[in-house]
């Protein structure tokens, strides 16, 4: 391969305002974080509720949660994103539709779409993990809580969920990382997150390899950092005399 590497490219002017290429990456990284973190909050909250619904002794509740999971898990993420961004706004009541299409600036409307999309998509996966976590607990735990007079919400709040969440930290971690990686789909609806900025840098500067190398590194370091963070969380909430951490 005959290629002239130029790592200095990131500090060169983009020709737009006073920005250098590195600024684009910083902005892109910021959007990636903003998308992933907001979507994660949605996914965790909704996924926890759905996971609980799948385990409560009520056929309607578990049916609704199961249907949700099947729909959101079996349609490709990218298809879901296009639905949320291109089709759903047309189905909104007119004032909302106009607000979304005309009043919001394009970055905000793309941001909202991708947060909703990633949040709801990941919620289906979080739901399944919460459900398995709850079902992995001995049946006697809920029975003991019930025998002491706890109501169903209290049983979940004080007995089942604190234990279930501790069990599922490892799979939840990989879901947490996935949401950062999946946030790259936002580039396809014009949100200038990390991948979109990388492509733009590649096109503007023709330094394709440097741009993608840096993006790869940023994703990698970010995810490694998150993984270590979650391992720390797991250690911090570990129960003395009970669960082992990190396969120890």
């Amino acid at each position: 391969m005959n290629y002239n590497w130029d790592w200095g490219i990131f500090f060169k002017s983009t020709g737009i305002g006073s920005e250098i290429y590195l600024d684009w990456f910083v902005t892109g990284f910021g959007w990636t974080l903003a998308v992933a973190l907001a979507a994660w909050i949605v996914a965790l909250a909704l996924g926890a509720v759905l996971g609980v619904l799948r385990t409560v002794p009520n056929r309607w509740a578990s049916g609704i949660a199961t249907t949700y999971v099947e729909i959101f898990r079996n349609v490709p993420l990218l298809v879901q994103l296009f639905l949320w961004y291109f089709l759903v706004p047309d189905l909104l009541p007119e004032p909302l539709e106009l607000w979304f299409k005309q009043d919001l600036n394009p970055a905000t409307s793309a941001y909202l779409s991708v947060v909703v999309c990633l949040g709801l998509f990941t919620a289906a996966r979080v739901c399944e993990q919460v459900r398995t976590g709850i079902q992995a607990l001995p049946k006697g735990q809920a029975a003991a809580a019930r025998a002491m007079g706890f109501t169903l919400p209290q049983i979940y709040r004080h007995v089942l969920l604190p234990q279930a969440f501790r069990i599922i930290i490892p799979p939840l971690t990989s879901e947490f990382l996935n949401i950062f990686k999946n946030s790259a789909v936002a580039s396809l609806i014009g949100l200038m997150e990390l991948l979109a900025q990388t492509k733009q840098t590649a096109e503007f500067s023709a330094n394709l390899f440097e741009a993608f190398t840096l993006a790869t590194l940023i994703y990698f370091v970010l995810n490694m950092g998150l993984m270590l963070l979650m391992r720390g969380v797991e250690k911090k909430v570990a129960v003395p005399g009970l669960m082992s951490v990190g396969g120890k």
Partner: protein
Amino acid sequence: MISIQNVNKWYGDFQVLTGCSTEVDKGEVVVVCGPSGSGKSTLIKCVNALEPFQKGDIVVAGTSIADKATDLPKLRSRVGMVFQHFELFPHLSITENLTIAQTKVLGRGKDEAIDKGLKLLDRVGLKAHAHKHPGQLSGGQQQRVAIARALAMDPVVMLFDEPTSALDPEMVNEVLDVMVELAQEGMTMMCVTHEMGFARKVADRVIFMDRGQIVEDCAKDEFFGDIHARSERAQQFLAKILQH
């Protein structure tokens, strides 16, 4: 205190309890025994409505379980239950295990709950372990904590569902000692157990169950006194567990 009136229970087509009736008076200690699958655990779990039943009624301290208007969580909060596998909450410290239901269910203040919990922990001889988690205690110690946890709710009756069956043999006695003491203090108790030594020592009555029915229901002395007067099934059962 407990009145079990013609209780019938089915799992689908299979009838697990058939026409069970008995009374447990205040301060009485009743031991329920029988072969596995005879329905003794199921019956005792009906007493605090952990297991639903389709026919009959159980009245605990004046409250009917079959009555749709009964607040079951409230009823359960007045009935202590000890499980075969202890079922302490592993993510909570011993102190928290002893206080959580007091504060969340009975609405007691935190200090009062801790005070009460630690007193009971002391009573079962485990005060030094208050700060630990259940996973750091032995089975016998965990079961003693479980008894203290149930007592912290000031129950009007205590139910024991094979409390020593999951324990190493050397830990059985430390749990039985606590139960004997409780019985002698006048607690109303219904105990599913195979510990015939315990039954002989403190039981007032012995109930023998087989295939979902109460086959024998008589005073302890009568039950152990003249074994040949017992039903054939009870004789077979006793012959097997008493020969050692």
